[in-house]
């Protein structure tokens, strides 16, 4: 059920990136799509009733405690994947915004229907 809501967020971002005419709104649509995919990736690792996958002194006292920790913590691998994906989307966002700003200087508008020098 939650996965369907995640997919709905992805579709909203895709609609925004495809339909809108302002360059900044297109960039925001792409960012909403990225957030939706990151959310989906974190939700994949969830275990009902789990705890955060951070070791502290109490868990290392005996093998029993450790086994209980391993079987009740959520999956940490999707969290590492999402960290990488957030860094990548940050770099992509910085590049997109700087191209938007430079295009505004040259053309004077953010409207993509007026930025159509390349045709054919």
């Amino acid at each position: 059920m939650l996965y369907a809501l995640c997919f709905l967020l992805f579709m909203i971002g895709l609609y925004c990136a495809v339909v809108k005419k302002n360059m900044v709104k297109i960039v925001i649509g792409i960012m909403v799509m990225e957030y939706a995919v990151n959310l989906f990736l974190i939700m994949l690792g969830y275990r009902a009733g789990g705890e955060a996958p951070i070791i502290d002194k109490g868990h290392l006292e005996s093998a029993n405690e450790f086994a209980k920790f391993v079987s009740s913590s959520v999956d940490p691998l999707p969290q590492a994947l999402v960290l990488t994906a957030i860094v990548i989307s940050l770099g992509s966002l910085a590049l997109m915004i700087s191209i938007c700003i430079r295009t505004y200087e040259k053309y004077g508008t953010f409207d993509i229907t007026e930025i159509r020098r390349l045709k054919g």
Partner: protein
Amino acid sequence: MAEKEKNSNGVKGMTVIVKTISSWVKVLIFLFGIYIILFGHLTPGGGFAGGVIVAGSYVLLMLAFGREFVEENLSLPVASRLDCLGAFLFALIAILGLALGGSFFVNFLYQKYLPGEALNLISAGTIPLSNIAIGLKVAASLFLVIFTLSICCKDFKPGTPVNGKE
């Protein structure tokens, strides 16, 4: 505009209250960012999150004091060199793993020289060193990005060239 002329030394920026408080808070935020970077192998965070917080402290300074003040403090070529230094350190750790351990990125400190006890600051081998390198690189890069984006003035006419850009 009147508020800006009332400032004591004529530098652009915000009012006296904001400037005083932000110059104290900036140091605390910088220290907090360094804490997150150094303890990255024990608590959540690590290189990237700590680097973003350190860059954020400089953004606070930029908002309160104006861009020229921060440029005197940490100029563009210095930030660019720090950026390359951070990335180069990370690559150096990987190559040292090859030279001393037999494979790229091997945790050679943990396996051979300095195991340390678990859950202390000095443990887990090369991971804190990688965190420091990544933190340095991310802080310098984000600072450069936000600084370069802020060169575009708020009220310029499209088509006129802006000073200071290449």
